[in-house]
């Protein structure tokens, strides 16, 4: 089902900014369902919502630079029967409005979709205040919150369609840093399910978002050394696909997790918490360990061992050990 194996190396594929898929999906959903509205914090341009605003002038609510109000307003709109897609830079959405996310959305169980734009280190040279590496760990600690980190334009749109059709709180990361397409057009998002985007039994790489294609590229390199890496796409960080993680722990030499997020409490943490409970095995957690220095997102991902080579090296280490 995944399109990978068929079409040559993943690194040669064209790359796309997932925000374009996001705005198209949002406009289509708004067309079909009058309840869909957008809520933004002076982030129309950074969310690429100018066309949406033209098409649905009163259904894009801009509260200005006020994230607490933005999330509270979304909770009120949901109470009024609307389905708000909050669209704001992930760093400000999650850091500035976390208590509103906890109380007004998660604990109140409001049907609000929190869309974290330009997450991870997408803002590159704008630095750690604009990097959103903590968002996943922060939201994972909150009950009643589905956390989705799509890896491609198709998956971004599919996750949005699922979220729009499913009552309850959800957080969706929308990548800015461009990524190749990994899924066929008709891909359907299934919450809490991992996708085996490449099969193998020597070692497992679990990834999502902007790092998934790098994991696939690493697997291609490993194949040349005769190491068959299983690559699990884990778009849903919460609830986690526990069975897929256990199977990986049982069937392969070890697990590498790789994500554009902190090494403390993100996807890596979720996988670690799962394996120690069900089937202890070695897990190498790749992620961002610090307030990053100046550099582009790509430069920084490489710095933190998430180049295809960096991921492949870790995988070789694990494969050798056992």
């Amino acid at each position, binding site marked *: 089902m995944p399109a990978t194996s068929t079409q040559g190396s993943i690194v040669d594929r064209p790359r796309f900014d997932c925000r374009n898929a996001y705005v198209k999906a949002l406009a289509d959903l708004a067309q079909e369902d009058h309840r869909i509205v957008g809520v933004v914090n002076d982030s129309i341009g950074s969310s690429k919502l100018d066309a949406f605003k033209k098409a649905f002038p009163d259904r894009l609510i801009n509260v200005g630079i*006020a994230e607490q*109000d933005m999330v*509270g307003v*979304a909770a009120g709109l949901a109470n009024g029967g609307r389905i708000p897609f909050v669209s704001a830079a992930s760093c400000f959405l999650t850091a500035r409005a976390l208590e509103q996310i906890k*109380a007004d959305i998660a604990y*109140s169980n409001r049907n609000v979709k929190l869309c974290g734009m330009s997450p991870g280190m997408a803002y590159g040279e704008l630095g750690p205040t604009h990097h959103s590496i903590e968002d996943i760990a922060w939201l994972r600690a909150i009950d009643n919150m589905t956390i989705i980190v799509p890896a491609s334009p198709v998956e971004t749109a599919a996750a949005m369609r699922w979220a729009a059709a499913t009552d309850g709180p959800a957080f969706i990361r929308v990548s800015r840093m461009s990524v190749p397409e990994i899924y066929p057009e008709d891909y359907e998002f299934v919450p809490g399910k991992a996708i085996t985007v490449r099969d193998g039994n020597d070692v497992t790489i679990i990834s999502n978002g902007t790092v998934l294609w790098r994991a696939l590229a690493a697997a291609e390199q490993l194949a040349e050394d005769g190491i068959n890496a299983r690559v699990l796409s884990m778009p849903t960080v919460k609830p986690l696909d526990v069975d897929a993680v256990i199977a990986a722990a049982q069937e392969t030499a070890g697990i590498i997790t790789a994500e554009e997020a902190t090494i403390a409490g993100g996807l890596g943490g979720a996988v670690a918490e799962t394996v120690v409970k069900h089937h202890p095995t070695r897990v190498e957690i790749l992620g961002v360990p610090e307030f990053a220095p100046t550099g582009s997102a790509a430069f920084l991902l490489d710095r933190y061992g998430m180049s295809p080579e960096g991921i492949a090296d870790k995988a070789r280490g694990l494969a050798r050990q056992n």
Partner: protein
Amino acid sequence: MPLTTEHATLPVFKQLPPHSSRGQQIAHIAEAARQIRIQDLKLVHHAGAGHIGGDFSAIDILATLYGAVLNVSPDTVDDPDRDRFILSKGHVAGAYYTTLAAFGFLPVEELATFLKPLSALNGHPNRNKVKGIEANTGPLGHGLPIAVGLALSAQLDVSRRRTYVLTGDGELQEGSNWEAMMAASQYELDRLTVIVDRNRLQQGATVRQTNDLDPLDAKAAAFGFAVVEVNGHDHGELYDVLSSVPFRPGKPTFVIAHTHKGHPISYMSNNVAWHHRVPSAAEYQQALDELESSPTTTGN
């Protein structure tokens, strides 16, 4: 003695028919408020916890809203066009549950579970547990943004439903309120009414000693609201003002309701110690006597 169903003595009220006179409405509100205070006093005393000071400063406002202003009843809690009320000062859950029970949203006996293990009635309102509650509040400064979202949803629906939100005065130190007020004015949400329980006390001291709000009327006006001041214990003034908003087309309304924490109990009124103190047996009896002997007029 721990809280039991014998302490759930509250009579149940209904809103009066529309054609009722102003005098009838006010008398009805006053009696409801008096009964709500008596019941709430029992809850706090017997449960051994609660925020009775803020409860008693807000009860006349709550009784006016549910008794004669809000277009919502136990049968219409899911009607999209019901009026919305958000209790932003969520720590007065005791007064809120009692008010909801007084108007039939909640079985009176259920009040006996207040704060008990696994009860639906914990220290702050939970919409997923109690019919009629619109938002889970408790952290201060959350209600006003939610109310702005509700008023926006009504504007989008071209509905005439109204949104009321009750905040504390100390609560207005939270910047989230001023973010929301700016947006309410920008979007001309004139069917939004903010009511401030202006008792001039917060948790630890007076508002003035802590971080003064005055001139509150000028602040609200500069943020684009039509400002009205009322005696927050005068049911007539509350009824007249809350039932006749908006005052300025295109402007949301800001009602400064002057109140006393602990009103009308002699030893509680305007005493910061009663933010969350629990009455002793003697204090309980005295408060009960004062309430039972008090005339069912305006609560003043």
